[in-house]
């Protein structure tokens, strides 16, 4: 291959390159902003959990940066399309791009792309992961534990009754309806009776698979009272699309009233011989 004698043409234009890069970054705010309009119109509801905003922040950071990147790619595509189309008397420049200057230029662009696009996102998500996602609250204290047993096609929830302990006769077992106190971290211990399901609460920005034969954990802290949808996100057969539940987040006082009432009902209906109704397992402490 013939190397180009020198990289003069690019080097001479470097200030122009930098100036246009800055202009492009400014320009890229336009698609990011219009995407924000899209989100307001069609996006998810605002997060209802204490840490859900982190997902949205990261989402919009990535959106801004990839919009900038895509605008740059489109412009670099558009310029030759408009300027360099084949016409009589016009000839392409004979350039193999194999000079040292070209290689250096490629390397610099790669480093910039990795730092701007990847490293910043990595840094933020690692921080979020360690502070929130992996940082599952320990049992006890303020933590509210929930056992979730998924099945085709329903969510079984089991929460402690007024005595605050699992495996006793006042355990509250519900199907497709979950009640949580606001502003207390809730830890979900997920498993499945049959096939793999995925516990998905869009408004809380969480999702975790419920696997048969293993216990998976996920947590969030409801921050806003109200009713929210629980969906199944993993294909689980015929009625996958109908596998929803409702999550009710109540103020602490109302929640305690509900717990008393539901606990009393559970106690009245308790049948020690009904093994089908008495599923429960000892989830391990601090399972990752």
């Amino acid at each position: 291959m013939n190397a180009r004698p020198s990289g003069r043409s690019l080097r001479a234009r470097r200030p122009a390159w930098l100036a246009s890069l800055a202009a492009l970054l400014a320009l890229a705010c336009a698609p990011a902003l219009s995407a924000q309009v899209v989100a307001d119109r069609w996006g998810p509801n605002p997060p209802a959990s204490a840490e859900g905003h982190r997902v949205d922040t990261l989402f919009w950071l990535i959106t801004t940066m990839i919009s900038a990147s895509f605008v740059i790619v489109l412009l670099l595509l558009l310029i030759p399309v408009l300027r360099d189309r084949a016409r009589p008397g016009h000839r392409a420049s004979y350039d193999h791009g194999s000079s040292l200057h070209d290689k250096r230029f490629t390397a610099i662009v790669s480093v910039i792309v990795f730092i701007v696009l990847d490293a910043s996102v990595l840094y933020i998500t690692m921080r979020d992961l360690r502070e929130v996602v992996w940082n599952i609250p320990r049992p006890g204290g303020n933590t509210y534990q929930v056992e979730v047993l998924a099945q085709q096609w329903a969510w079984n929830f089991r929460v402690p009754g007024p005595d605050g302990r699992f495996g006793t006769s006042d355990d509250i077992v519900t199907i497709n309806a979950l009640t949580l106190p606001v502003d207390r971290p809730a830890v979900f211990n997920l498993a499945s009776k049959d096939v793999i399901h995925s516990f998905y609460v869009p408004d809380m920005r969480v999702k975790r698979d419920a696997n048969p034969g293993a216990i998976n954990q996920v947590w969030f802290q409801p921050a806003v009272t109200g009713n929210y949808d629980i969906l199944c996100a993993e294909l689980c057969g015929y009625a996958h699309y109908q596998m929803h539940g409702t999550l009710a987040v109540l103020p602490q006082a109302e929640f305690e009233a509900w717990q008393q009432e539901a606990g009393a009902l559970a106690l009245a209906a308790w049948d020690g011989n009904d093994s089908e109704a008495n599923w429960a397992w000892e989830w391990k402490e601090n399972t990752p």
Partner: protein
Amino acid sequence: MSGDHIHAEPTGFLRKHVFSVDHKVIAKQFMWFGLVWLLIGGVMAMMIRWQLANPGTPVPLLGKLLYPRGDGSVPPDGYNTLFTMHGTIMIFLGLTPLLIGCFGNFCIPLMIGARDMIFPLLNMLSFWTVVLGGLVGFYSLFVPLGAAEGGWTAYPTLSGNIGTPGSGETLWAIAVFLIGASSIMGGINYITTIVRLRAPGMTWGRLPLTIWGLFFTAILNVLFLPVIGSAMILMVLDRSFGTSFYVPATLNQTGGGDPILYQHLFWIFGHPEVYILILPAWGIISDLLSFFARKPAFAYRVTVGAMAAVTILSAVVYGHHMFTTGMTAMLGESFMLLTMIISVPGEILFFNWLHTLWRGNLRFTTPMLFSMGVIFVFGLGGLTGIYLATIGTDIYLHDTYFVVGHFHLTMAASSLFGAFAGTYFWFPKLFGRMMSEKLGKLHFWTTIIPLTIVFCTMFISGYAGMPRRYYNHTDLPFLRSIQHLNVITSVAAFFLGGAQLIFAFNFIRSRWWGAKAGVNPWQVGTLEWTTPSPPPHHNFDTIPTVVTGPHEYSHPALKDRDWLPQTENLPVA
């Protein structure tokens, strides 16, 4: 070595057209086979989109025929079968035969200056194995107790007897095994042919980038198709022979298997599979952008290095498909970091493609338009991958339409655009006739516009939280409020599907009635354009001697033309 005349030209019809060992005939067989399956898979996509836009209403034209027991609407289990088979067919029976089977077989011997593949009989066996796989897969739709319904990923225990009792799922696994076996045979053949049969002077540094792309794909095929093959064997054993490799002890008293084991096996194959499909397309467009920009490919060696880096990295990032499965923090963060690193070679490829066009002399032929289309489509798809590589956002977006939009733009649309570019480009060499440029350009614009709408709308609905693989999105109020996005996607998808009829018409008409192509209609320099269109049985009268690289365009000392065959020396400036 490469000068040998490997086999004599057959005379009987069967030997010549059906059980041929000639790489050019096998390439055409793969092409027709792939196109027919793309049509079937495409019709399935149309039915999926019909159901999502008008849940529970009879499918026009096909409904009564396919679902005679109901009112002609798609039932929920039928819907699961549709997207399962749509994915399987498009990946294994549509794109793989077209991109790898057809272009691999056709281009490798012709572009490296060989008379045929090194193992012609294995080549024939590879084609007939994929045909068998296709037949088994098709038959699986009509068996008692139902067809495959577990998605193309077929996660146990849903794909086990607990979730899918129908023998269709077993036949599906056997079909995937057979198709994988076919790809392994092809891969061994491609690697050996490229290593052993290059014409004199065809050094590694003079190989067209198409061949480099196919070479890396063949390596991934040989390394990772055995993994999916093993996963399928275990699945068949679980389903039909009472083992429990994937069945946990809680569901089965006899053994303690693990459904997550399958997910690891599947994605160890499944992630390289994305690159198996995209690498040939990258190779093809890296060549075509240079050919039609009339300019040398920018930084050839760096492009090859970037493709090699992607090939290696593709094997160590599969865990990003399993962030919600229940990974440890250490594994999750490692897979995230490795996945992010892929963006560097990816960015270098874009940089080189754009630089190839820069100050070129661009000829906007149909192959050129589709190659530039790959830059656009893969740009959208590749950049949106960052959301899914990042665990923080992936947890929310996983298994929503965001993922569907992302992987369709990358592995489906980009590969398909590469396949279209290749089809328009090599059609004259394959069949000796030109495809209509006018219809080709119409096909390009009527494809890329609806395609962008289809998959970008999926990004919006996915961000809103719309889960994938739902039969009906109108059950929940929050999904009902974005149902109109489904309607937009579906209408655009129907335009997209309809536009492919332009291609089918152009293909069929040009095949028999197109204008005769000369030896070198595109004025390019690679070896296949030095021999007649279509090439004779033995490809080259004399094996060419290669003296220059594949991308010598617009050399200043070339006066009457701007291209140079690989068999001619560079002029003295």
